[in-house]
């Protein structure tokens, strides 16, 4: 142990301590602490970004789900519409066909009536001419009552066959 107080050591120790403190601040813990703070901020930012991304993804998913739902609804609508349209068209076609058939039937009936009329008129004409012919033949021949009757019957049969 020294027999004197070495004040020089005291002064030197304090000066060394202060210099060391400043050097460490400048070269060691100053930059390292800055880096730690930077890292802290970086991590906080990353977490924030991740959180934001997650939220965005969730929103996007919700949107997609909505979209799919919409598409499904639309598809159903389209199918329904198509069904309805088909039904209507069927109805229309049926009606049209029925009308057509009716019309055809009507025209056929008219035709038949007309034909019949024509035939009757023709018959009537022929009957008239035959009557004239028969009358002339009757006049030409001298017939007895029996023959006359036979003859008329024959002619009439002839007319009936022709009809």
């Amino acid at each position, binding site marked *: 142990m020294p027999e004197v107080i070495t004040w*020089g050591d005291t002064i030197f120790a304090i000066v*060394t301590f202060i210099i060391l403190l400043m050097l460490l601040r400048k070269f060691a813990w100053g930059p390292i602490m800055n880096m730690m703070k930077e890292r802290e901020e970086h991590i906080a930012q990353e977490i924030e970004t991740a959180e934001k991304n997650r939220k965005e993804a969730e929103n996007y998913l919700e949107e997609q789900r909505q979209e799919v739902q919409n598409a499904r609804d639309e598809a159903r609508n389209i199918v329904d519409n198509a069904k309805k349209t088909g039904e209507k068209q069927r109805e229309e076609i049926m009606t049209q066909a029925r009308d057509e058939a009716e019309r055809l039937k009507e025209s056929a009936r008219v035709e038949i009536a007309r034909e019949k009329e024509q035939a009757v008129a023709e018959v009537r004409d022929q009957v008239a001419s035959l009557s004239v012919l028969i009358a002339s033949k009757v006049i030409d021949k001298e017939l007895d009552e029996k023959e006359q009757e036979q003859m008329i019957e024959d002619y009439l049969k002839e007319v009936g066959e022709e009809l």
Partner: protein
Amino acid sequence: MGDHGDPIVYELFGISWLHVNLSNIMMLTISAIIVFFIGFFSARKLGMKPTGMQNVFEWLIDFIKGIINSTMDWKTGERFFGLGITIFLFILIANLIGIPFMIVSEPEHNVWWKSPTADPIITMTFAIMVILLTHYYGLKLKGPKEYGKDYFRPVPFLFPLKVIEEFANALTLGMRLFGNLYAKEILLALLAGAGGTGLLYAFAAGAPMVAWQAFSIFLATIQAFIFLMLTMVYMAHKVSDDH
């Protein structure tokens, strides 16, 4: 150390009271340089992803932060971080530096290489510096009125004790460190001395030497930690409002 002396230069620069122990000067300088390089190399390659020494130093920073946080809130404690880390590293290295060997000059028997903290001058210097800093920050952060009032709390008649406490704090802070480190140095010197006298003694002293060196490492670390802890406790006592 026993019969060993110190390399003292008397009346430096012709100033009558200015004596200097060259051993302390040398060892303090070497300790400071080691501490600086530990810090410097830790911070040389800084990265967002810490590697190697940066990890160690970041752990150290968190450790010091933890100690400060345990005594006061970080808002007031932040300014003492530099003080804390410098005290811890400087005293830790100063404690450890005397363990591996000892250099004694012949024929004067002057000890050159030893822990500077095994000298009461150095430990008391740091202790008184710390106590003065606590008073300075007490005055600065709480104002003279609150600072003065603290001497009369919780009851006024404790005032004399409060004054004595300040001196006692400084004395115990410095002397605890000195005592531990001085004991470490003496025992190391004794064991080394015993080992040097003969082959038989060397065998006999070998095992205790290794054990004591291992314990010295523990002791050096724990004393540095205690010094840091008490510094922050005294500081918190002076600067925080709640007690």
